[in-house]
């Protein structure tokens, strides 16, 4: 049913449709509306779940870890400092290969303190071994959340659904909300084969000596690689049911004949779409590459997507100080062995919630004509605001 919903409420409803047995969360802006709405659904008897309101994000992640290990479908949500406080647990969840779903309402990481959107938080746990999927709009966030529960079950890996804080979480959008029947028929019951069970006792999280550690890491990497086609197939299955795809691993839009490509994740893609529609005539056409799966990284699909491009603009919503862009660096690495790879222009844009206007499209297209442009820049930095020694 199509209705106008705030992003967070839509996510709460999508989670409720998946009927998690256990939800644990700790409040942090801009994730709060999600857990408030879940709490309300529980309080009104519209959702039957053990809602564990914990004393920290560290415990939120630990509770869902324990719940899923004990055979429960489990969900949590957080952002920013919460992701970082959880970091140790997130690596542990992935290393134990526990299937559960977490929404990250992407927000910048302090200091300086900022409650606004960028991808610094989920990037900080890039190597935790979680699947990370990014959503362009709230419809995708709803669809991806439901898909995430199935991906987690089929891959026995945890899934992080990343949606831009405020830009998506606090924005009203017309959402086609699936029905309970649709979800119930599509999402199989949670049945974790390795669950803690007194009738078949197993030990989890044992001490592993150097004789076995490398093998277990290798197996984790292999499992993440095997998840690539699973993510793609589950999106197709969802599209077969609802008519809506969230873009599989990545999606190519815009002019297929264009020589310039722009790669981005999350809501920036929506801005670029609007920017291209408004400015393509003057600034020239582009191929927009929407990267949905950041982990596992779809290297093959990306190499296919950039064929024929002369320039590839890669937008980062985070920065690795001392290196530059994170997505940009990874894209460059993945394309390094292509014979005629595009020239990569890597920019960090919209850090700490700086608004990204539609005109960014024209500005980015103009910037590729500068032969002296550095390989990486903070594109929207205003150096005038800085002391000379900081520029």
């Amino acid at each position, binding site marked *: 049913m199509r209705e106008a919903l705030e992003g967070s409420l839509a996510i709460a409803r999508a989670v409720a449709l998946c009927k998690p047995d256990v939800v644990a969360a700790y409040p942090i802006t801009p994730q709060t509306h999600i857990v408030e709405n879940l709490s309300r659904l529980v309080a009104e008897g519209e959702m039957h779940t053990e809602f564990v309101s914990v004393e920290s994000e560290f415990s939120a992640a630990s509770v869902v870890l324990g719940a899923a290990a004990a055979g429960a479908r489990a969900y949590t949500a957080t952002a920013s400092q919460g992701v970082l406080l959880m970091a140790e647990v997130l690596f542990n969840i992935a290393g*134990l290969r526990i299937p559960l779903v977490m929404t990250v309402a992407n927000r910048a990481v302090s200091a300086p303190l900022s409650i606004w959107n960028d991808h610094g938080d989920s990037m900080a746990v890039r190597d935790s071994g979680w699947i990370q999927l990014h959503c362009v709009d709230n419809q995708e966030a709803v669809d991806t959340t439901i898909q995430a529960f199935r991906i987690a079950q089929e891959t026995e890996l945890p899934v992080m659904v990343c949606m831009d804080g405020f830009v998506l979480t606090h924005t009203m959008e017309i959402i086609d909300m699936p029905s309970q029947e649709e979800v119930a028929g599509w999402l199989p019951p949670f049945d974790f084969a390795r669950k803690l069970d007194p009738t078949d006792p197993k030990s989890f*999280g044992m001490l592993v000596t150097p004789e076995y550690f490398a093998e277990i890491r290798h197996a984790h990497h292999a499992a993440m690689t095997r998840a690539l086609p699973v993510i793609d197939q589950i999106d197709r299955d969802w599209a077969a049911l609802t008519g809506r795809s969230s873009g599989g691993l990545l999606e190519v839009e815009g002019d297929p004949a264009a020589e310039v490509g722009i790669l981005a994740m999350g809501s920036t893609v929506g801005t670029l779409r609007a920017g291209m529609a408004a400015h393509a005539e003057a600034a020239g056409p582009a191929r927009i590459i929407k990267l949905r799966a950041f982990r596992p990284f779809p290297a093959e699909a990306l190499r296919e997507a950039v064929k024929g491009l002369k320039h590839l603009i890669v937008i980062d919503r985070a920065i690795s100080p001392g290196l530059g862009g994170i997505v940009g660096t990874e894209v460059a690495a993945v394309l390094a062995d292509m014979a005629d790879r595009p020239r990569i222009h890597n920019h960090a844009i919209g850090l700490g919630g700086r608004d990204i206007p539609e005109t960014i499209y024209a500005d980015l297209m103009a910037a590729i004509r500068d032969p002296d442009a550095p390989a990486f820049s903070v594109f929207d930095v205003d150096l005038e605001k800085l002391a000379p020694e900081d520029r």
Partner: protein
Amino acid sequence: MTDETRLSELRAKFGRVPPAPDEPSPKPLTLREKQPRFEGLVSGHRACQGCGEALAARLVMESAGPDVMVANATGCLEVFTTPWPQSAWHVPWIHSLFENAPAVASGMEAAMKAQGKKTKVLAFGGDGGTYDIGFQALSGMLERYHNILYVCYDNEAYMNTGIQRSSSTPHAASTTTSPAGKDRMGKRHLKKDLLSIIAAHHVPYAASASVAFPADLQRKVRYAMGIEGPTFIVVHSPCPLGWKHASALTIEVARRAVECGLFPLVELERGSLSNVMPIRSPRPVRDYLEVQGRFAHLMKDKDPRAEKERDHLQALADYNIATFGLAGAAQDANDTGGAAAVGRGGPLVGGM
């Protein structure tokens, strides 16, 4: 009369017929098969000789029975029981991290509730994981009233990493991060009174126990198992390596800790003292200190600082004896003090 003849006579008298020579004798039971109780933690693990924690955990698992699952904090217990691919656990067991066993257990308990199962969740941690790094998660678990029995195996320092001081390390004990030296007499601070903090959560049941008193420990575990809600037991578990005593002396050292009053065995219900183990004739603290290398610097009779610290520790023991009423009126040959209030060996009449 030969032994053989005497044996035949006894068998004839008491009705036992010797087996016929060609009758195959039944396969003798192994020691393990003779065990009358369920063993959740079995032998063959890698604990040191005389490990108090290994003994305590075995006793706890025996009393808890098979329908349990365990969340175990990082520490010796986790390391010595589960060197991949071997495990000494016969119950479902999970180790996540150092500081989150209470939260992981909370999730397991929530899962059991959601699935309508009655399996009891246990959470285990050492003193580092309980008094220090996991303290916040423990408080959260108690406040949220999860149906979990948390057992802290208290060996009074970070033994797994090599005997570093924790907030549970007793005053004046020498550890690798509170070493006794020219300027210092070991740990400068007091052992944290964790049980009082636990009691301040007004949980249904909190108790201290000791490996030197296994029947008392097991009674407390059985009692806690019967309560639906958060319960907590701290078990004094000597570490021969860290306390620097002979591994054969584990029980003796633990007993002296109780008998001198430094580790009082008490039970608290809803935050109020409900029972204590009386000490008929308290021993001097010196008896406890002198058998442990971690207090060797307190035994230098010519050092006035040693005498001062000994007096300090004796005062702490005297305080415990007075505060909890461990001596005097509670003396009773059958240890029945508080029995009516506690309802030994089973749940409280009338529920929680």
